[in-house]
């Protein structure tokens, strides 16, 4: 079984967000980058499947040279080889198109990724890749088991979950609790250094999306504290000031 895991290279969840170049570029100054948390679940499940079957796991990122340490970390966690598509991941369609173009001739049985990236929060790349490759796509997936060419999945829905079955090949957008995050061990880190990391040039495409600018939210006004002896004051504030109740 051939598994492709697509990962994003995103700011750590505790990062302070700022922009430069007249609010058109993310300010990476002093920011720690990580494998997207949802992608990390996808990768962990792929490595588990590799341990229980004879799967080969390729990890892919659409990004510029600075994302290579993130790909090396994925290799340390257990992927066999890595692909970097050498382009700025400008928008969801652009990224999905690059993934689909790369994957099509290889014929993966399973393409896993996070349910969404934590930078642009699109949640659409899996669906786009599925459609571009003519494969079923399921997201957000909480459970994934493979039985021959059948996949059994659980998908989170509002207020619950649904169980699904479909045939491979399949694209899945993953989230917890599909697998436990894996922390690379020393042997993994050592072997990651020599595992293949291939750089592929992107294909040209018009995604129909143009970024104009970024914007930060207005600063929050300070909190109004209410005495614990006077809970009814909160109710009247919610009613008369916030106009909610």
């Amino acid at each position, binding site marked *: 079984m051939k598994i492709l895991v697509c990962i994003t290279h995103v700011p750590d969840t505790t990062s302070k967000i700022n922009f430069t170049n007249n609010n058109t570029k993310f300010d990476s100054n002093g920011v720690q980058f990580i494998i997207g948390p949802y992608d990390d679940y996808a990768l962990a499940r792929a490595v588990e499947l590799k341990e229980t079957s004879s799967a080969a796991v390729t990890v892919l990122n659409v990004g510029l040279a600075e994302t290579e340490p993130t790909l090396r970390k994925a290799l340390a966690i257990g992927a066999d080889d890595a692909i970097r598509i050498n382009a700025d991941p400008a928008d969801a*369609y652009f990224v999905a198109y690059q993934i689909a173009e790369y994957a099509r001739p290889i014929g993966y049985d399973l393409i896993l990724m996070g349910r969404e990236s934590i930078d642009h929060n699109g949640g659409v790349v899996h*669906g*786009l890749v599925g459609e571009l490759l003519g494969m079923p796509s399921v997201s957000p997936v909480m459970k994934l088991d493979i039985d021959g060419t059948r996949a059994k999945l659980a998908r989170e829905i509002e*207020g619950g979950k*649904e169980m699904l079955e479909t045939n491979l090949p399949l694209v899945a957008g993953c989230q917890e609790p599909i697998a436990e995050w894996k922390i690379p061990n020393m042997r993994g880190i050592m072997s990651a250094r020599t595992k293949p990391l291939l750089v592929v040039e992107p294909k040209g495409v018009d995604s*129909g999306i143009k970024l104009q600018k970024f914007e930060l939210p207005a600063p*929050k006004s300070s*909190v109004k504290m209410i005495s614990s002896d006077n*809970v009814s004051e909160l109710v009247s504030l919610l009613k008369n000031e916030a106009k*909610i109740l």
Partner: protein
Amino acid sequence: MAILVFVESAEGKIKKTSIEAVAFAYGMGGPVTAIALGAAEKSELEALGKYGAEKVLHVSDDRLSQGIIQAYAAVLEQALKDENATMLVLANSSLGTPVAARIAARIGASLASNVIELPNTSAGFVVKRSIYTGKAFAWVELTNEKKVITIRKNAAEMKEVAGAAQVTPYSVTLSDADFTTKITSAEKATGEVLLPEANIVVSGGRGMKGPEHWSILEELAKTLHAATGCSKPVSDMGWRPHHEHVGQTGVKVAPQLYIAVGISGAIQHLAGVNSSKCIVVINKDPEAPFFKAADYGIVGDAFEIIPKLTEAIKAAK
């Protein structure tokens, strides 16, 4: 140019987030045609007229009573053609967003998800998206003639504008290939207010000291007609089900009012709630970082404050 809106239903009722999508499309200038798949009550479909839908296409094919993503995309492709529509609006939901992706790739549309405001059409078609889990926004232009957008909860102004919509049966020829994915069963909380759709959310953290203490939060939630949520440690410890986990890697909520009880306010939790209109924090630790993100705060013992708050709300009604 007609705008097509995909509306979702559950147990025959139209989902609130889908009604918001209809109101949003009306706000864009319509005319609005809604399309509903599977079982939905006729009165519910007609009521979409109140929020601006002129016409509702109803596809009552039994195979579509469950949300099969590929099949839904196939139906929407045909409906866009038949309605001569180039614009599709969906709710940003566990079904709406994946369907939006497939239909956009299928028809070559510009795609933007998580849209939070009406588009600016003074020059081109520009939407504001929520990014970095609510910590920033992006303004993006959709340049293709065909466009697909998903809108986040509370993006639309809800006002009643007209009467009943005209409901028309609609059918699409689907192939077996559209149904290769099968839903075998579903588990769903019933009779409660669903967290992603709630206008008010009451959330508890580790400060609640154990699942046996949730009844006071549930009582408060019931009084407010609110959904209950929780922090990540609470769902990780199994005190509450996973679908109640609010935060960076859980459900992102955007209610009118978010009440956080015994949650310290880790940045990953704040990422899931920072789109709330008003935040109330109740915590015994005056240094809890959540207070900095709150509109109103009370320092004290939740086990004393929550029952008092419930009583005060009942008294004020």
